[in-house]
C-alpha cells in the first residue's frame, strides 16, 4: 500500500490562522531586516572586491598563528575561515591599491610566506575581483532579482488576476528577505552563487504559489456560491499533499548535496533548503490568505467574474 505523507481530505483552517501567520511573517521579516541592518551580510569578493585564497595545509594550522603570519606579510588585514575541513583555510584579503600586478604580488607574497612558514601547502583556489567589477556584479545581481520579481508579477497578473500578482510578490519579497536574514545571522559568505540560489528560491516558491493559485481559480469557478475563505481553505488543503511531498523530496535531494556535495556549494545548498522551507510556509499560510485581505470576494466581485473569463477562454 503506498504511503501517504499527508492524510487524505485534510481540513485545516489556514484562513482562520492567517492573523497568527501574518504576525509571524511580519516578525520574521522585521527580524531579518534588523539582522541585515545590525550584522550585515558577509559579502564575498564578488561584491566588495578583494582577494580570496583557499589553502590546504598538511595539518590543521592554529588560526591565530596563521593570522599573525599572514598579517606580518604586509598585505593588509586578513580574515581567515575554515572551509570544509580544519586543514582547508580560506584567506580573505583586501584588494591592494595601485597599479596592475599588485594582486599578483600579494598572491606571490602570501604563497611564499606560507610555504616558508608551513612547508607543504596547496593553493586550491584563488579569486580576485577589482572594485569596479564587483560593483557591476552587485548591480547585475540586483537587476536579475528585481527583474525576475517584476516578470513574475506581470505573468501572474496576465495569467491570473492582479491580486494574485500582488499576493505572490508580497510572499516572494518575504522569502527573499528571510533568506538574506539567514545569511546575516549565520554570516555565511554571500557571493554570486547565493544570488543564483535566491533566484532559484524565487522560482521554486513561485511554483508553489502558482499551483495553489491555479486551484483557487479552479474552485472559484466550481463552487460559485461558496465564500472566498472556505474556497481558499479547500484549495490549500487539496494541494497540501502535493506541496508537502514536493518540498520533502526536494529537501532530500538538497540534503544529499549539502552533506556530500563539494564544500564550494555549501552556502548555496543551505540557502536553497532554507528557501524551500520558507517558500512552502509562505505559500501555505501567507500568499493565499492574503487574497482575503486584498479584498477578493467570490462570485459577486467583478474581478472574479473577470477571472472566470480568463479561465474559460
Amino acid at each position: 500500500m503506498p504511503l501517504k505523507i499527508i492524510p487524505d481530505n485534510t481540513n485545516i483552517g489556514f484562513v482562520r490562522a492567517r492573523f497568527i501567520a501574518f504576525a509571524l511573517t511580519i516578525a520574521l521579516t522585521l527580524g531579518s531586516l534588523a539582522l541585515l541592518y545590525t550584522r550585515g551580510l558577509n559579502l564575498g569578493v564578488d561584491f566588495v572586491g578583494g582577494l580570496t585564497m583557499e589553502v590546504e595545509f598538511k595539518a590543521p594550522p592554529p588560526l591565530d598563528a596563521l593570522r599573525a603570519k599572514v598579517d606580518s606579510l604586509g598585505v593588509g588585514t586578513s580574515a581567515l575561515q575554515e572551509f570544509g575541513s580544519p586543514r582547508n583555510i580560506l584567506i580573505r584579503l583586501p584588494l591592494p591599491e595601485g597599479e596592475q600586478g599588485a594582486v599578483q604580488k600579494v598572491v606571490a607574497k602570501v604563497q611564499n610566506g606560507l610555504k616558508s612558514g608551513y612547508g607543504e601547502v596547496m593553493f586550491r583556489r584563488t579569486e580576485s575581483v577589482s572594485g569596479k567589477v564587483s560593483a557591476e556584479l552587485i548591480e547585475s545581481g540586483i537587476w536579475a532579482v528585481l527583474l525576475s520579481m517584476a516578470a513574475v508579477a506581470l505573468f501572474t497578473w496576465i495569467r491570473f488576476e492582479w491580486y494574485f500578482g500582488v499576493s505572490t510578490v508580497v510572499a516572494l519579497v518575504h522569502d527573499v528577505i528571510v533568506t538574506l536574514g539567514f545569511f546575516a545571522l549565520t554570516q555565511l559568505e554571500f557571493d554570486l552563487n547565493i544570488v543564483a540560489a535566491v533566484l532559484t528560491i524565487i522560482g521554486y516558491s513561485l511554483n508553489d504559489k502558482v499551483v495553489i493559485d491555479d486551484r483557487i481559480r479552479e474552485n472559484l469557478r466550481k463552487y460559485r456560491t461558496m465564500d472566498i475563505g472556505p474556497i481558499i481553505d479547500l484549495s490549500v488543503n487539496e494541494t497540501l499533499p502535493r506541496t508537502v511531498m514536493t518540498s520533502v523530496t526536494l529537501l532530500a535531494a538538497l540534503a544529499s548535496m549539502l552533506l556530500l556535495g563539494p564544500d564550494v556549494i555549501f552556502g548555496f545548498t543551505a540557502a536553497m533548503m532554507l528557501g524551500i522551507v520558507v517558500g512552502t510556509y509562505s505559500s501555505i499560510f501567507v500568499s493565499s490568505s492574503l487574497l482575503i485581505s486584498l479584498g477578493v470576494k467570490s462570485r459577486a466581485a467583478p474581478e472574479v467574474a473577470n477571472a472566470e473569463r480568463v479561465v474559460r477562454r
Partner: protein
Amino acid sequence: MLDFPQWKVWSIAATIFFGFLFAAPNFLTEQQAASLPSWVPSKQLSLGLDLRGGSHLMLEASTDDVRKTKLETLEETVRSELRQVPGGAVAFTDMSTSGGQLSLVVTDPARIDAAVEALRKVTQPIGGLGGARDVEVTVAGDSRIVLTETDAGVAASIDNAMAQAVEVIRKRIDELGTREPTIVRQGQNRIVVQVPGLQDPAALKALLGKTAKLEFKLVDVNADAAEVAAGRAPPGSQILPMLDGGSIAVRRRAIINGDQLVDSQVSQDQNGSPAVSFRFDSTGGRRFAQATRDNVGKPFAIVLDGKVISAPNINEPILGGSGIISGSYTVATANELAILLRSGKLPVELKVVEERTVGPDLGADSIRAGTIAAIVAVLAVSLIMVTVYGRFGVYSVIALIVNVILILGVMSGAGFTLTLPGIAGLVLTIGAAVDANVLINERIREEQRKGRGVIPSVEVGFRDATRTIWDANSLNIIVAVIMFIFGSGPIKGFAVVLSIGIATSVFTAVTLVRLMASRWLFKARPSVLVI
C-alpha cells in the same frame, strides 16, 4: 489525453534516442570518443573551470588610453601631412592636445584652407549612415585649426584595438602551449581569458599584463644632464626612465619600432648571459640599416613599454636586419620577452580586473563530490517516489533518469559548459520533474477519491495537472532566461542547466510518463489503481 497516435510515439522515441546519442560520448573515455566515426556525435560535455581546474582572467582596457594613443598618432600624422601639403609645407605653432582635441595655429593664415584640405583627407570615414568620420576638422578664428575626435571615431578605434588585442593575446597564450584557451571579448573594452588546467596563472598574467611596445630611439646627446635629472626635456626629446635606475633623454621620434619584427628568440650576449635576439622583416631591416648607418658613433636607446632597457653605441651600421637585446635577463625573463616580441605589441594596456583560479585537485574533488551527491539525490528522490506512488512512482523514476540523460545530451551536443552551480541547477531540475509527477499523481488520487474509475481518474489527473505544470514551468523559464541575460558567471551556468532542464523535465515527466501509463492501462486494464 491517454491516446497516443503512432506518430507521437515515434517522435517521443526519436527525441529520447537522439538525446541518448548525444549523451553517449560522455560515457566513453576521451580517446574512445575521439576515435568515433565523424557522423556519430562525439562531443563530450565541457566542464567549467570550477570543475576541471584552471584560470579565468578578465582583462580590461582603459578607453582613455585608446583615446590618448589615437591622439598621439594623430599628432604624428598631422605633422607629416602638413609637411607634404601641395605648394610647400605649412608652418604652424602652438600645437597642443587636450580633452580629445588637437589644436594648432597656422603661421600664415593664407595657407589655412590648403592645410584644412590636407588634414581632412587623412580623416577616416566610419561605416554607417551620415558619412561620419573619425576626426572632425574645424577652423576657429582665422588661423587656428582644431581636430576633434568624434565619439563614433573613438568607439571604432576601441573596437579595433580590442580586436587586435584578442589576436595578440591568442598568440601569446599559444606560445605557452596550453590546451584550448578561450579568449572572448566581453562588452566594449574587456577580454575574458580562460585557460583550463593551468594552476599557476602568474606566467599567464605576466604575459598578458605587458604591452610589449618596442622602440628604438636616438639618445639626445646634447641634453643637459642637470635638466634631464630635473625632468625637463629639450624640444623634440623626452625623458624616459632607465631600467636599471636613472633617466635619459631620447628623441621623441622612434627611428624604428617593433611592428616590423618577424622573429625573436632567446640567445646569449657576448658574455654568455641570456639575451633576446630579434630580426626585422625586409623593409624593417632596410630602415634599421639606414638608421644605423646615418647615426654611427651615436648611442641609441632600446625602449620597451616606455622604459629604456639599454642605450648602446652604434659602432657600425647594422645591415643584417637583426640584433640582440641584452640586459640583466635570466633565461625565464628572456624567454618571456622573446614571446612578447614575437607576438607583437598590444594596441592598448590591459589590466586584470577579475581572476579566478581553481587548482586541478579542487576541481577533481568538486566533480567527485558533485557526482556522488547527484547520484544520492536521485536515489533518495527515487526511493520516496516509489514508496509513495508505487507503479506510477517507478514511471517517474524512469522519466527522471531519462531526463538527466537528456540534459546531458543537450548540453554536450550544443556545447554548453557545466559548472558547479550547474550541478545545483540539475538538482533543482530533478525537483521540478518530481514536482510535475507529484502534481499528476496527487490529482489522480483526488479523482479516485471522488469515485471515478481508473482510466477516467488518470485521464483527468493528467489533464488538470498539465495545465498547472505549464503555468509553473513557463514562469520558471522566464526567471531562468532573466538569470541568463542579466546574471554573470555562476548565475549564467545555473540558468543554462535550469532552462534546458525545465524543457526536458516537462517532456519526460509529463509526456513520457503519460505514454508509459497509457501503455500499461490499455494492456493490463486494471480495475483498481493503487496510487
